[in-house]
């Protein structure tokens, strides 16, 4: 059980180090970096490399943004397996519905509750 925590910490940290390298070395803006990582996530899943990583690292692979790309692709491929080409469209948000809906919902609730301050 403890080993899951350690692997999650290490794999999560490494993915963030890659993001930091994209920030500092490749001089990408945060938005570009996140898009690159999402695309990388979905390509990795296409090659079937991301699922074993989730098995190995648990939250270390599902929390970073690469898991968003992965679950989109995974849903699309799972549905495409059953229904062919149309499945690619129908299955897209099959797996990852909670991420987007939670972000939209909590974003709006935050807009109602909070007021931004400028303190450092």
């Amino acid at each position, binding site marked *: 059980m403890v080993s899951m925590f350690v692997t999650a910490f290490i794999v999560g940290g490494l993915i963030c180090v890659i993001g930091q390298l994209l920030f500092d070395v490749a001089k990408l803006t945060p938005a570009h970096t996140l898009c690159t990582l999402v695309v990388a996530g979905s390509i990795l899943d296409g090659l079937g490399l991301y699922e074993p990583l989730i098995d190995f690292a648990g939250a270390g692979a599902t929390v970073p943004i690469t898991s968003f790309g992965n679950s989109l692709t995974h849903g699309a491929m799972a549905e495409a397996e059953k229904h062919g080409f149309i499945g690619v469209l129908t299955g897209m948000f099959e797996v990852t519905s909670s991420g987007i809906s939670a972000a939209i919902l909590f974003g709006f609730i935050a807009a109602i509750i909070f007021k*931004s*301050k*400028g*303190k*450092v």
Partner: protein
Amino acid sequence: MKKGLLTFASRPSIAATGVTAGPLEQQSPFAPLFDKVYDDERSGLLTNEKGHAKLVEDACMIALSKVDSKPGDVDFLLLGDLVNQMTPSNFTAANLEIPYLGLFAACATSVSSLIMAALLTEAGMSQCTLAGASSQHNSIERQFRYPVEYGSQKPDTAQWTVTAAGVAAVTPNKAGNPAITKATIGRVVDLGMTEPLNMGAAMAPAAADTLQRHLDGHGTKITDYDVIMTGDLAKTGFELYKTLVEKAGMDTTTNFRDAGVEFYGNDSNFQAGASGAGCSSTVYFTDIYSKMMEGEYKRVLLIATGALLSPLSYQQKETIPCIAHAIELTMK
């Protein structure tokens, strides 16, 4: 290049100054000299822009109270800020009902408005003109960079926009007050800098160019001035600016200062230092102004620097054009 040089024979004076600042600015070494300080970024109002307008209006009223006159006695109001279409300055002009000229030179507006006021006074058309510039951290941050609460890692070259407004009342020559004697209108200089989080590097060449033209045009030397203070180059820009000036064969070790470097002291929370029209105008109208009134400085050269980019020009991969206006104040 002898163009863009101004000499004011009638030596218009800065009769009084009004400076207001936000909560974060209380930790600035210049804070004791501020006339009014708010404990909330929005000075208690609903939106950032409303707070920004109140900041400017209070600064104008304070400057007027020091020359004990009312908005009705003022001939011209010259204001500028960085928000889209300068709405805070426009709303202030609406409340004060003074004939209004909106000026935009980004963070160089503090000096460009002084130059325009001096010109109007020199032409004998104005007994009292209010000239000033302002900026507010929240409204600039959300317009130029990211939402305030967004967690992006600011590099060491980033600058923190100051929440402050500085306004000066310019009148025909008055003994005992700093007089505006010479000025140089800056040229737009663009040496291909593209990183909006390193504006100091983009503005440094403009400051060096204006300094060089001012000294050559008016036939003065670095040593004639007690201090040569640039607007908001901050640490990186100030280093580059000094290097450029030294390459032109001048010594920058004695009397070179920068408002951006000094505004927040040496607090690493603010990365390279301060920026914004509020930064240069407040330091000029408090620190420099009081030191001249006390006689510590006899002759100063103020070079305010401004980056003339927009969020749109950045996204369209344009480089950052910059400008720097210079003005010379003398105590007789």
